[in-house]
């Protein structure tokens, strides 16, 4: 089962994990990204491409379910303004075995960084700034590419 959510509401980790555990899996892995207050950031704003974002997240979730035989994959991404210390993204996977759950979790967050249309804007004491993309995110995402994953 796949669940994808793109929502301005705070992310509730406990209920997401409880839902993942309800699938009867032996192994649950999760990743939570937290807004950091580095460099004087007082607020982070997340913009996204409505419609395309949800489709992109469903696509990578389906890839993960197929590749690691997951019982469930969940991607929850917050949008809009949020404060340091708040959750920006939650990834959860349920599988029969630990390596499937953990590897799929790594895959999902790596791919989300490059394959889903979100943009971060940092608000500080000075003027707001759009966060620049990172080359190492592309490298991290590409490590999951296998010949079978490449489009024909």
């Amino acid at each position, binding site marked *: 089962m796949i669940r994808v959510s793109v929502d301005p509401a705070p992310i509730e980790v406990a209920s997401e994990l409880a839902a993942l555990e309800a699938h009867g899996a032996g192994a649950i892995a999760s990743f939570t990204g937290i807004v950091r207050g580095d460099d004087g950031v007082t607020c982070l704003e*997340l913009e*996204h*491409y409505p419609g395309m974002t949800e489709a992109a997240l469903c696509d990578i979730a389906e890839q993960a379910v197929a590749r690691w035989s997951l019982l469930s994959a969940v991607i929850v991404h917050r949008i809009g303004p949020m404060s340091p210390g708040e959750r920006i*993204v939650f990834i959860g996977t349920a599988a029969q075995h630990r390596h499937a759950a953990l590897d799929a979790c790594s895959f999902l967050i790596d791919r989300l*960084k490059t394959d889903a249309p979100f943009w971060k804007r940092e608000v500080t004491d000075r003027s707001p700034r759009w966060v620049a993309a990172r080359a190492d995110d592309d490298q991290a995402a590409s490590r999951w590419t296998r010949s079978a994953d490449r489009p024909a």
Partner: protein
Amino acid sequence: MRVLYFAWVRERIGTGEEEVEPPAGVHTLADLAIWLRDRSAGHAEALADITRLRGAIDQRFVALDAEIGAAREVALFPPVTGG
């Protein structure tokens, strides 16, 4: 055809969405971006450096040299930074 803009591309252009009717010579997303530069000073600034842009056609990521074809919705934006 609808063109969407996001992040600093949207900010510099001053709108997130507009309807355009590009002429026959506009085949690719890059062609479109170059053609759009003439619409305003904001467009010219936002779309000045094609290498800083990424794009989507009908809500799928594509390279800037992708053919627009009969697309109903295209988008231009900076590299994504989610997660």
